[in-house]
């Protein structure tokens, strides 16, 4: 049975070029980059080259790139790092209701330690309004954190416009670009950000590595202590091989950005058309415009996302719904709830996300299988309402 992956927003397979670039750093150039001798130098070279590649990817200076263990750590570091460094100025943070949990949960923890957090609502398309942001600003606001593109529904925020509001007041502006990377162009100056989070495994790089862009002059308190790595902002021996892989992945992603976006766009349109023509009772949760080219979030009336996901999985098709909890079950997406959907609607959604390796044949197969799965789930749901 054919295995089809339509869950690229969860993670991506490693590219061949990345694997090739990584391998020498396990046994040949195995050194610790902090060592002063030949072994250290080889490893350090790999790390610094990758740093330059990420800097080119973001159009920033290499000195402004910090390597972390991934998007979650980058987000945690950005939020706690700014708050802990600017306590005397204030402790108010503004974010949105549809952020990833690696933004919302650290903020919950920081709120318990005394920070105040304002969560901006979003429109039914998932967009933040500049007026709402302006109204939320206070004298004690030190940080605004808004993701460039949403992981669940794909909505793209007007970051440049929002940035103007924030930075004229000298408030720090952090943007989670984890999902946007590789799909939208990233230029820290066009976007107008002070901090930006990236994750390698969303752009065909390895898991376990990410980066945080920190504009020169931004005060940031470290989370991890115990070494002077990353300009004393992130202690710990660097994950050299993964960092090298990240650099290569970013370079390729930048080169192929337009082609990749076009590839995804056409496949997503094909998928959407196929679904709408063959499955009744669907609602588009993703905005029709200004959304990631590869992301399609669709609600299926009278069917549980859980049942649909399981039925598709048994047919070899991987999609996503909601988010996984610690026990391995699915929780309804807080993003859909923030759009104004009710719990039932939030529980009836599937997220399809295509990627580099997705083919038209795969889309055809999904369009063929999905209607039967939906019908079976719907019939089962009806029967149990005695």
């Amino acid at each position, binding site marked *: 049975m054919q295995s089809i992956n339509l869950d690229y927003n969860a993670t991506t397979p490693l590219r061949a070029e990345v694997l090739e670039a990584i391998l020498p750093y396990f046994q040949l150039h195995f050194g610790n980059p902090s060592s002063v001798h030949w072994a250290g130098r080889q490893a350090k070279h790999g790390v610094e080259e990758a740093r330059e590649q990420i800097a080119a990817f973001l159009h920033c200076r290499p000195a402004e790139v910090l390597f972390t263990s991934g998007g979650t750590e980058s987000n945690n570091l950005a939020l706690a790092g700014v708050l802990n460094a600017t306590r005397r100025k204030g402790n108010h943070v503004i974010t949105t209701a549809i952020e990833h949990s690696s933004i919302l949960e650290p903020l919950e923890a920081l709120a318990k330690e005394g920070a105040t957090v304002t969560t901006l609502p979003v429109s039914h398309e998932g967009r933040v309004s500049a007026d709402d942001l302006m109204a939320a600003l206070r004298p004690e606001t030190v940080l605004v954190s808004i993701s460039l593109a949403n992981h669940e529904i794909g909505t793209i925020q007007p970051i440049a416009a929002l940035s103007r509001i924030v930075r004229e007041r000298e408030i720090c502006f952090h943007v989670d670009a984890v999902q946007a990377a590789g799909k939208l162009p990233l230029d820290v100056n066009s976007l107008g950000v002070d901090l930006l989070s990236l994750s390698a495994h969303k752009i065909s790089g390895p898991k376990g590595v990410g980066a945080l862009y920190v504009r020169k002059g931004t005060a940031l308190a470290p989370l991890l202590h115990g070494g002077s790595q990353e300009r004393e902002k992130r202690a710990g021996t660097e994950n050299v091989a993964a960092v090298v892989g990240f650099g290569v992945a970013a370079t390729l992603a930048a080169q192929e950005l337009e082609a990749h976006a076009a590839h995804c766009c056409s496949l997503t349109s094909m998928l959407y058309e196929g679904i709408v023509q063959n499955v009744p009772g669907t609602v588009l949760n993703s905005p029709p415009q200004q959304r990631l080219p590869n992301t399609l979030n669709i609600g299926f009336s009278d069917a549980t996302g*859980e*049942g649909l996901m*399981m039925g598709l999985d048994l047919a070899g098709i991987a999609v996503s719904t909601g988010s996984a909890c610690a026990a*391995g079950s*699915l929780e309804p997406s807080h993003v859909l709830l923030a759009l104004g959907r009710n719990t039932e609607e939030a529980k009836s959604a599937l997220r399809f996300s295509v990627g580099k390796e997705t083919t038209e044949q795969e889309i055809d197969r999904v369009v063929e299988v999905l209607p039967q799965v939906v019908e079976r789930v719907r019939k089962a749901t009806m029967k149990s309402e005695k």
Partner: protein
Amino acid sequence: MKTTVTPNSELRTPNSPRRVLAALSGGVDSAVAAALLVEAGYEVIAISMLLAGNAEGHDGGCCSIDDFQDARRVAEQLDIPYYVLNLKDAFRNKVIDVFTTEYLRGRTPNPCLLCNRDLKFDLLWQRARELDAHSVATGHYARVSYDETDDRYRLLRAVDQRKDQSYFLFTLSQAQLARTLFPVGHLTKDEVREKARALGLRVAEKPESQDICFVPDGNYARFIEQRLTAAQRVQVAAGEIVDQDGQVLGSHDGVHRFTVGQRRGLGLGGLAEPQYVTTIDAERGRVTVGAKSQLMTRGLTANTVSWVEEMPAQEVNATVKIRYRHPAIPSRIVVQAGGRAEVWFQESYPAVTPGQAAVFYDGERVLGGGWIEKAL
């Protein structure tokens, strides 16, 4: 470590009459049940049900994160798909909230019965239909048999009398019984553990969960107190403990802390005879106690009675269990209108507890059962 059963990873075709949804709790019984099905050539899809919110690893409770890890490993060893279903909302509404309100009414609920009746089997059933599975299977110690002459399904006690869980399954309908498998019902617990060891399943030696799955530390009174709304808090206020004549003997901290037949925790010292709770009046916040003789009753009334076997026209002789761990006692069941019944014990019996279930047996067959309203 792979088991000796044939992996069925290629058999995932829909419309298969041999596709079964097997519920895994992370314990040895459901693990062996799934393994037996795989051995018998069924196409098994394993699921666990996330019921309570506190999925932290805890001892004694069931279905913690550690339990799901165990279940996942079992599924891997058997090479079958595994999913965790999120039933927290439904469980809270249909089991936990009902559990709380029953105690506030001075009744003693059995949450496992509520779960089986209103949640577990219905939801397992729905998922089974969604996934085109023909049956569901659990690790319960009970048996289903089909009687050709009557064209009826029977629910029977397990072979292992000490483990028999048929008490919890009396609400299953004919339609449900037709599609429910209990693969370990014909084995003893020892045989089940032996089978688990033979298959190399890591859960072979796992101890059984004892307490209510959503109250892992067993302190159900505190669990209830922590969940009360402001309005409900009044209902668990302190009140009086009185004797059969209404004389106040002492005070208590909330009717939810008591069950009929309870002897300990009354805080009444220096009385001639040991005292037992005979009735609980939640409206007046009053707990009545008496000597053991006053606990004895002639029978009980039950409501929401359901029948696995054909409902008798008027009455039937049967043995009845009024609690899970009680023996079945000879009784006469008189059918009444509106899904009710009177159960008359052959000999007086103590501690009929409103809120529990009365399950009717004929030898090893479950006839049906109902919910205890009050003692006669």
